[in-house]
């Protein structure tokens, strides 16, 4: 039996760090995690379908998809996990499990190739996962103002958008605060406790 009652076990919550290839996902996880980012693997058939049943798997060609994640023990009751999402489209099955129970997501936007974060935005919009956009300011990239980025990404006016440096702990922390405040503000009874 798997308990979800209120015993002494802490609870785990999850935030996803998404964005295109090389957008700084692993860097951001590492900037705030209390442990060095860990990597784990899930099996995947050649067709890109996830494995939740090992029956007959010896005969199938499989590869693995790597996920990296970090951990922040917020207090004795709550452990926050940050999961970087796998970039390639054929790993969508993994996104379903990642999104399950996720509090919200950070979409890292790399201004050198903004379009690479469109699939993440589409996914979270469709799933109703609240997300914020963090514009990762890479050296040598053309600076855009946030208004231009918002227009280019075509996200709703309520979606928070901020500049960040994924390497910087304070900056990454600010992004997480923005996300959780946003998630709270979307709750019907939020006002009283904010």
């Amino acid at each position: 039996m798997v308990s979800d009652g209120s015993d002494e076990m802490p609870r785990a919550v999850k935030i996803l760090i998404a964005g295109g290839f090389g957008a700084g996902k692993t860097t951001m996880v590492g900037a705030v995690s209390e442990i060095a980012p860990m990597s784990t693997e899930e099996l995947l058939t050649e067709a890109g379908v996830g494995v939740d049943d090992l029956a007959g798997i010896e005969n199938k060609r499989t590869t693995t998809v790597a996920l990296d994640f970090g951990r922040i023990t917020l207090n004795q009751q709550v452990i926050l996990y940050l999961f970087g999402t796998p970039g390639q489209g054929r790993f969508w099955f993994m996104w379903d499990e990642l999104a399950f129970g996720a509090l919200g997501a950070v979409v890292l936007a790399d201004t050198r190739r903004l379009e690479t974060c469109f699939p993440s935005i589409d996914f979270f919009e469709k799933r109703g996962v609240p997300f914020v956009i963090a514009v990762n300011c890479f050296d040598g990239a053309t600076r855009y103002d946030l208004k231009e980025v918002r227009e280019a990404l075509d996200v709703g006016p309520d979606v928070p958008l901020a500049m960040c440096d994924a390497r910087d702990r304070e900056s990454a922390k600010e992004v997480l605060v923005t996300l959780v405040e946003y998630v709270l503000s979307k709750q019907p009874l939020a006002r009283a406790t904010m």
Partner: protein
Amino acid sequence: MTAGRDNWVDDEAGPLVRPYAMTRGRTRPANSDLNMITLVVAAKDEIDTVTLDADYVAILELCHQPLSIAELAARLDVPIVVVKILVSDLIDLREVIARNPTRDVRVPDMKLLQAVLDGVRRL
């Protein structure tokens, strides 16, 4: 995957022989609601190293404090699905206690969200 602690799997065999062997024919977790952030903690102070297989003992040794399925998979260097199967066995053996995150995310827990906010502000 890399073959983990004992590297007896040759490249020809592909990445699946060891995980399949580890689950000893079990093909899916009996507890299907285990997920990557299900927290697992040992239920007993002592580990029964005599009757339990080494793979179970390895999990129990890590779980003297609550750890997620994802962390177990990373530490043991095996795929998540394999850890789910082994943890599921350990639950049935009453060797571990597991706790899932809030079952229905559409019923948000304001106290939990507030605790997360306070926690990330303190980072």
